[in-house]
């Protein structure tokens, strides 16, 4: 259902732009463009989908294992396994070299396909597909909403999993197992634990949880290829007064950011609302790229979609966009703190999709 809807929207966008053939690229890191057009969630190797404005789709994969999986998971499209997908797609494009052909995201294409000596020229259709990826239909929003619900449940599991003496990777193992039991096949998750010596989150290490630690996580499960994220921080033992005071700034910033979300405002407006809270508290330095990456981002078929919530991003928010607002950064009195909720931009404003309380949770030391 969702697949048909996406393909129809993509075909309509191509026809409107006068593009006759589209090449979509994907890999396990950035697989959203490929998945939008082919419905295949790539895990290994490179993938290219060749899509015509009439709606025909052919998927080229250079992993034999993933090609076998694609034949079952997307049985309605032609799947071609070949160790060199660029030349295989190039051979197809040679036949239609006189037509208008575009690619998205063009900058990720294998270089060979963009070499000037090719018989075909590939325009950049990234912006066209970006619009489709960002503004979601009711069915797509339902998938994100379900993913947010699973993220809430997984965070509950995370609270139960954090105990002194456990290693970070053992906690992540618990969460991934919880998600697999729920039938959720994909999740992006990073973690941090410690005190003022910790400046961010990363994949899990062998570091053991200790009393007094701040434990941060970003959990991002996917449903039908749509990701939703939650960010929370907990303390092992009783939170100190400094930790509570610090955390209150993040609650205020998150609330300010969410309050700024409505159709017609820019991503920059949301970032500014969050950062102004930090500036008000004399913490403006910690909103810079030295301490934090983004103040939130889009969510959808990629865990870190456009638009990025930054003070120089002018993308206008529209109904149907799903985002996470997260004023995650370092605090000099407490260490790295994260707090973020998945949200939906609605016709009238905003709907918060995460239901986990915005608390500095405490677990037994």
């Amino acid at each position, binding site marked *: 259902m969702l697949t048909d809807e996406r393909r129809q929207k993509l075909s309509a966008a191509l026809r409107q732009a006068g593009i006759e053939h589209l090449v979509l690229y994907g*890999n*396990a*890191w950035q697989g959203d463009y490929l998945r939008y057009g082919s419905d295949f*969630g790539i*895990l*290994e*190797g*490179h993938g290219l989908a060749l899509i015509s404005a009439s709606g025909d789709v052919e998927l080229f994969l*250079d*992993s*034999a*294992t993933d*090609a*076998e999986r694609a*034949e*079952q*998971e997307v049985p309605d499209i032609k799947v071609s*396994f*070949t*160790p060199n997908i*660029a030349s295989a797609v190039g051979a197809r494009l040679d036949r239609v070299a006189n037509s208008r052909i575009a690619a998205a995201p063009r*900058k*990720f*294409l294998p*270089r*060979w*396909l*963009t070499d000037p000596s090719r018989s075909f020229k590939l325009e950049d259709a990234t912006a066209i597909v970006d619009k489709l990826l960002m503004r979601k239909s009711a069915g797509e929003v339902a998938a994100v909403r379900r993913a947010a619900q699973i993220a809430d449940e997984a965070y509950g599991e995370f609270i139960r999993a954090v105990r002194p003496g456990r290693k970070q*990777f*053992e906690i*992540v*193992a*618990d969460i*991934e*197992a*919880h998600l*697999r*039991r*729920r*039938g959720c*096949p*994909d*999740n*992006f*998750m*990073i973690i941090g634990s410690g005190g003022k010596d910790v*400046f*961010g989150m*990363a*994949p*899990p*290490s*062998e570091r053991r949880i200790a009393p007094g630690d701040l434990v941060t996580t970003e959990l991002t499960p996917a449903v*039908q290829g749509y990701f939703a994220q939650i960010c929370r921080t907990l303390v092992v033992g009783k939170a100190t007064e400094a930790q509570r005071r610090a955390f209150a700034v993040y609650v205020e910033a998150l609330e300010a950011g969410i309050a700024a979300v409505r159709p017609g405002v820019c991503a920059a407006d949301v970032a500014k609302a969050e950062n102004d809270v930090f500036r008000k508290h004399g913490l403006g330095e910690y909103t810079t790229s*030295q*301490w*934090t*990456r983004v103040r939130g981002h889009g969510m959808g078929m990629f*865990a*870190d979609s456009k638009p990025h919530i930054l003070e120089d991003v002018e993308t206008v928010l529209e109904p149907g966009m799903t985002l996470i607002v997260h004023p995650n950064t370092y605090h000099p009195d407490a260490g790295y703190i994260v707090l973020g909720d998945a949200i939906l931009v609605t016709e009238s404003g905003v709907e918060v999709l995460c239901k986990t309380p915005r608390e500095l949770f405490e677990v037994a030391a």
Partner: protein
Amino acid sequence: MRRGLIARSLTELPDAVFDARLKRVREAMQRAQLDALIVYTNNTRPAGVSWLAGFVPYWSEALLVVPREGATYLVAALSFRVKSWIERVSRLGEVLHTPRIGLKAAQQIAAVKSDAAVGIVDFDGLAAGIAADLYEGGPSLILCDASAMFAELRGKADPAEVALAQKAAEIAHRALAAAPGETLNAKIATVESAARDLGAEEAYIAAAPDLEKDSRFFRVEGEAVLGKTFALRATVAYKGTWVRLVRSFCERQVAQQAAEQFAQAVAQLPDDSSFSGFRSWLVEGCRMAQPLDPLIGSRFGAAHAPKPGALVSVQGVLEVNGRQVPVGAPALLGDKGEAASLLVDPLFD
């Protein structure tokens, strides 16, 4: 995008291992008259950079630059905040952070020698945007493909990599050996959890839920109904080294016959004639940067015949007593004409 434990081990990957690999690479660069070598890494293609520096990205992308002389350095699109993490888990001279990694890498190389000869691993497959930035950052650099040179070095495993593959195989075996649970999802969760608890850097469990209907594997979303016979496949990475292991849940006698036939066929590799009795088969291994590149198989013949001394993961489907039985395990190919040997028993109690 589901990384588990990422940590450097100075006992499993001491500096001497990376030094020896870099020495071989630099000798090859000297022969090829290359001033620098560039190796790309991301989630999907980490195995070139992890082999040279131990770095495995959980996100984003980076270029490793190996000058013919001097320390290697990483040009990473990951943000500055994770610099200390990268340095902790890798063995690198320097880490530079920039969103335009091609531009920065080219500028760094050109600053030493403006017309340097630069070999790029998998140049044809490099992202077009990075390639364009390389040309912009070093307009006089001479860029060329170094895939064949690198594949020649990367294709044969050294003792450290064999030991890591052995550990990965043991993790996969122990994880698959314990697959309790009423439902398929419960079994998958148990296997994945066990692999991660044993230190797997990546664990991806695929299923063929009903072998009477289909012996192909897929990733389960939602619920799938278990048949009387089914199979699980664990793809496990340990410190940059990947293996696949298959367990078929069927009658012991059938599984044993399949395992024996499989072991006999694997022993003959890279001669693949013993696989003629298989319904399908596939040999994967690392050539450059993709951890499990398809090398030879029933679907495509010999794309890239594995080299003597290569680590491979082999999968096949046999018909035993009228039943389809998937079987698979990692193996080490003989270096000087010896039989290939399985790293772990493909049979489970």
